[in-house]
């Protein structure tokens, strides 16, 4: 499946890319903020997106709303350091399909992305 990674940290983008590639995801774009994510999304039409929340310019919450307005079927996994329950609940209410807390291992991000797809297929 085509995956786009959105995070303001290059180290985290690379880590997600390694974990996802090991599970056969195809990385079609990596964005540093919400604005860049919208541009790449229009160009590459990913089926799955990992989304950081705390980013400059357009943050993750605003970007989730914009992406789902363009393409409601997009699967979004929030990958964030924000550990309070209210933030996770808000992201899920907006239409995100999962939430993974930082820090995480390569194995964990890959497995979580697979679970996201299984949930979409069977849910």
């Amino acid at each position, binding site marked *: 499946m085509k995956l786009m990674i959105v995070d*303001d*940290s*290059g*180290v*985290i983008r*690379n*880590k997600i890319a*390694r974990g996802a590639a090991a599970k056969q995801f195809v990385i079609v774009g990596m964005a540093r903020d919400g604005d860049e994510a919208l541009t790449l999304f229009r160009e590459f039409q990913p089926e799955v997106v990992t989304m950081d929340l*705390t*980013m*400059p310019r357009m943050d993750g919450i605003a970007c989730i709303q914009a992406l789902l307005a363009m393409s409601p079927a997009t699967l979004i996994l929030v990958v*964030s*350091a*924000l*550990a*309070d*329950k*209210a*933030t996770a*609940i808000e992201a899920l209410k907006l239409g995100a399909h999962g939430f993974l*807390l*930082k*820090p*995480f291992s*390569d194995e964990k991000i890959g497995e979580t992305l697979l679970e996201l797809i299984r949930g979409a297929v069977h849910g």
Partner: protein
Amino acid sequence: MDEKWVQIFVNGARDYFGGISDTPAKVGTSYLSESIANDLLDYTGIIGISGLCRGRLYFSAPSTMLRHLLVTLGEVHADSSYMADMVGEAANTLSGNSRRELGRDFVISPPTVIEGVPTGDQLPRSLRSLVIPIIWHKYRASLVLSIESIHEPVAANG
């Protein structure tokens, strides 16, 4: 800022290093500092804090530690831009994870990263800052909390 706040960030530092590596961090005795310039190292990630309180969180580390962290995370690059990225992401994760206890009203900014010693506006506005020494492998980093004012008691989870 009371003992409860100190413990939240001490536990957060232990959890962070234990989460990204097999080597847990040791946390030294925290202390108050009126001038944190001497506590800051090669790279410093700065997080602006608003909402529940106003202030800044600093995570500062030597280059040697950041290179080791990058390798631990599987990163093949370790030049200055990656070290800056690493210190900013660590500051972001340490502050963001604290919202498990502090709640969503502990609002954090994206990180600003300084290479070298911060000066002027980059230094805390508060009179005294809390410095938490973090030892991981043979390296020493500093987690600094500079809180100007707390608007409410520590919130319940979530």
